[in-house]
């Protein structure tokens, strides 16, 4: 390959937007859980289980996990883009990050479905 600096991948807006939207989702979820804890939902195993297994909470928890992983993907990739220069290492790190996050998301989903 010729040694030229090339940029112009024509993407980035969606990631930037997704980072914001997923951030809002996480803040809202955190506030809901904090409010529930303040009202004593964490008092016993049964009350916590009842709170977390309600239909709406399953929906929200899954959304939270997807948001967390997506947010982490954009953020961690930003770190690789900022600090890692060799393209090969960067690609490897991107792939590893993606695989790890997909694995975590699947694992988390299994835990929620088990509730």
């Amino acid at each position: 390959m010729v040694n030229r600096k090339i940029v112009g991948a024509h993407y980035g807006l969606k990631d930037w937007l997704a980072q914001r939207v997923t951030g809002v989702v996480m803040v809202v979820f955190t506030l809901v859980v904090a409010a529930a804890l303040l009202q004593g939902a964490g008092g016993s195993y049964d009350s916590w289980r009842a709170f977390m297994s309600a239909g709406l909470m399953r929906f929200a928890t899954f959304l939270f996990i997807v948001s967390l992983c997506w947010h982490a993907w954009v953020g961690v990739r930003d770190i690789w883009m900022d600090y890692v220069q060799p393209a090969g290492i960067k690609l490897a790190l991107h792939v590893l990050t993606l695989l790890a996050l997909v694995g975590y998301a699947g694992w988390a989903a299994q835990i929620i479905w088990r509730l």
Partner: protein
Amino acid sequence: MTTRTLQFKIYRYDPDQDQKPYMQDIAVEVDSTDRKLLDALVKLKAVDDSIAFRRSCREGVCGSDALNINGRNGLACLTDLGSFPDGKPIVLRPLPGLPIIRDLIVDMTQFFKQYHSIKPYLINNDPPPERERLQSPEDREELDGLYECILCACCSTSCPSFWWNPDKFVGPAGLLAAYRFIADTRDQATNERLDNLEDPYRLFRCHTIMNCVDVCPKGLNPTKAIGKIKDMMVKRAI
């Protein structure tokens, strides 16, 4: 006339003579007619004429005397000597992140390359009218805070994103200029300009750290311009 002695610590490096850079301690006497840091630098040059720095207009217009002053980027000609506390040496270094040519002089090639990459000129393919292309006063107002940039590079060289990827990230100065033409109602290349910037490196390396806003000697706000470019991209996409 009252005089006072200023102590300096100045970054020195002459690639033809020095193995590596060093900090030189040097003092200079200034009087009450010396108001700005540049005045002191000019006097310093009389003490040691081997010190190299750029300057031209001496009034904040040409943008050539940007330095790292006590750890903060700024123009020597706009920095009041009165703003320095007594007894502490004034530490002068070249702008961070750019290759050093000699002493306080940096190689701005990369900075200007990024500036040129955003096509800093009006693109309009209509035949020019007899007199001039008109704008309403409101449309013209949008260009305030954009056209005043003197390309001193204080902002871009204080931006960590520009330090890490100066060859790929346009940097605050370039992006401010980009928005100056995106916002210009007389320009017809808005879409191409947005296309050109929609890139994870060219625009989206900006993490809104706002160092650029903090140091701009002209009081401009590149972060705000960058935010407006992002807004336009979102509007275009949804």
